[in-house]
């Protein structure tokens, strides 16, 4: 039982973080995280045969999220992405900036999320793993079962797409000056 406990605590937070980033609200993140761990429990008997357990867990998590996006596309989900920054997601700003600057930055992150929403799921996942989780290209490639080259291509395309969208966004262009 100890190994199960270790396994759970080793992966729980990373799964929750990823799901939260992809769906953007606590309620759905909790539902999906729970669903993912039930799936993991259902198939746990094959986990021993799998070497890269974190990749296996992430695959299940990612595909549960894809399924959710494809299947539900609920008003709640679309509404959230369309209108505002996800609840509770914040940015780290070590400087004690004045309220106006804080507000502007808040707006900037709101815009950033809207831009992210326009990217395909794969691009968002790659950006998350690379820049929020800080993984290397080979690590991301292992997790996504693809080549290093492909990860780089997706990453570059995602950044280029974000840039071209941000280019047309006045709040962004102002902030980036």
């Amino acid at each position, binding site marked *: 039982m100890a190994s199960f406990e270790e396994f759970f605590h080793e992966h729980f*937070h990373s799964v929750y973080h990823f799901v939260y980033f992809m769906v953007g609200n606590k309620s759905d993140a909790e539902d999906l995280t729970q669903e993912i761990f039930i799936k993991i429990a259902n198939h746990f008997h094959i986990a021993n045969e799998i070497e890269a357990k974190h990749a296996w867990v992430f695959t299940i998590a990612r595909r549960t999220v894809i399924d959710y996006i*494809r299947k539900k596309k609920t*008003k709640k989900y679309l509404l959230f992405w369309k209108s505002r920054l996800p609840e509770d997601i914040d940015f780290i700003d070590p400087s004690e900036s004045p309220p106006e600057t804080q507000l502007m930055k808040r707006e900037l*992150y709101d815009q950033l999320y809207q831009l992210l929403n326009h990217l395909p799921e794969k691009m968002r996942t790659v950006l998350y793993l690379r820049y929020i989780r800080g993984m290397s290209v080979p690590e991301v490639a292992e997790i996504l*079962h693809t080549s290093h080259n492909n990860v780089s291509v997706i990453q570059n395309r995602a950044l280029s797409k974000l840039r071209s969208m*941000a280019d047309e966004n006045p709040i962004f262009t102002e902030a980036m000056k």
Partner: protein
Amino acid sequence: MKEALFEKQIIDHLQRLSIPEPDPEFEDRVYQKFMRQLQKKRKIHVFRRGLIWASSFAIIAIGAFLLWQSTLVQPLQQFTQTGKPPSSQTENVLPRYSSIPPDRYTLDGEGLYLTSNYITTGELGPWHFYDNTMGNKLYMGKEGEEPTLIHSVQDGYVTAHIYPNPSDPSEVLLIVLESRNNNIDYQYYYFVDASGNLTNIDFLPQYGYSDSSIHWSPNGEKALVLLKNAMYRNTALVLFDVQTFDYTLLFGNPEPFSEARRNENALGSNRLSLVTWISDELIVLLDNDRNTFYTLRTTDNWEQNYTTETFKIEGMNILGLKLYPLPKYESVLVKTGQIRLDVGFEPSYRLFTFNPNAGTFTLMNTVSVSGDAQYEQNFLMLSKDGDPVISTMVVQDDQYELIIQQMDPIRNIAMKQFNVYVPYVLSNPQVSPSPSSQRLAIDYNAEYYEENIDGGYRVYSLRFLVFPDLETQSIATYEMEEWGEMMWMDENRFVYGDLVIQLSGNAFFR
């Protein structure tokens, strides 16, 4: 240089995002569930493993006994049964599937995006479809039996669309989509007969079409395969005979990577969006670009014998469009409307009857509304008599009225009607008729909104399970916090998730 700097700034902003930690109570709750599920699964596996060991042992023991027996009685058998010397080559008929250890039989479809008419499932008829949890191998099989590998990819992953034969669900057609690095979907078509024999149908275009669907004829003898390539605005429709494996290209461009030409054929097929069978011979197609319906008898020559009807409907939108065949009336029900994205009830779903024989397109007259009333209509099912059953939600003066009707779509009148006031706006109905189709369990989505103190709205979602009673015009309602699988145990007991509901009245059809 400027671009690189801009991207660097974006990365910088991305890296500053901070995602909240999960609540410890939630973590603890999931942990408890995880452990419970593990224990449950372990018990099943131990039981199955024990069963298989016991079965194997028993088979070996019986086999050894029979072998010993056969050596004893062989001379007599040789003489009395055949009169010939026994062949040293005994006939050895292996079953198609044999038992496998439970730790190799992994999935019942979970973890795999398998769809059948947009319902995610891994189980159809007697078959389980599942992958190797990494998404690059797709299997089918019966529980506890040797699985068959359907498809395998080296790179990328597979998803599958599975279409069971309406007349025999153990026969299925599959489209396996293989996503590769260059983002082109490769498609593979397979046919599985009732005995589990797998055939790769290799004459259909195997790649480049990004969206395809299969439409079985009602008698299950033929299937239409609709192929669409969004990039080149290209469409092809193939009629496939399941009995003979013959196929006919009804129209369209079989080359996925070439621009479709408007005048290529009479139909101008590049924006064909929907297709359905009205009967075993009659099909209806819709070109959404032109708001035009086409009808054809599949026994006729397409180029000469199709008919067209063009309609203009406000709010007709591909996202909300659906066709429901009405074989009894040789007509088709058309659902039009926009998918709602914002807060508030802005109903747009409407149901029209398209009658190809009369060339008419009529708004289904399910409800008469007045003043500022808003309403939306949804198709629920066909009754046993073949009539459409419709659900309508009417909102007026902050009152929500739910109307369920059995319609005659040609005369455009309700033959049976049920209406009741409900506490929430109910949308997105999913119906499950009881085994005798007398009772209807309808699962509605109910959303409501509350204003936040600091502005904006928060959306709350509930499920409402209702059992309408036509005779008493009453409704049994059950409020659910989360979605559950629906299943009838018998005529009086209904299961929703892990809740069993006992019913006594509430029959819609008597």
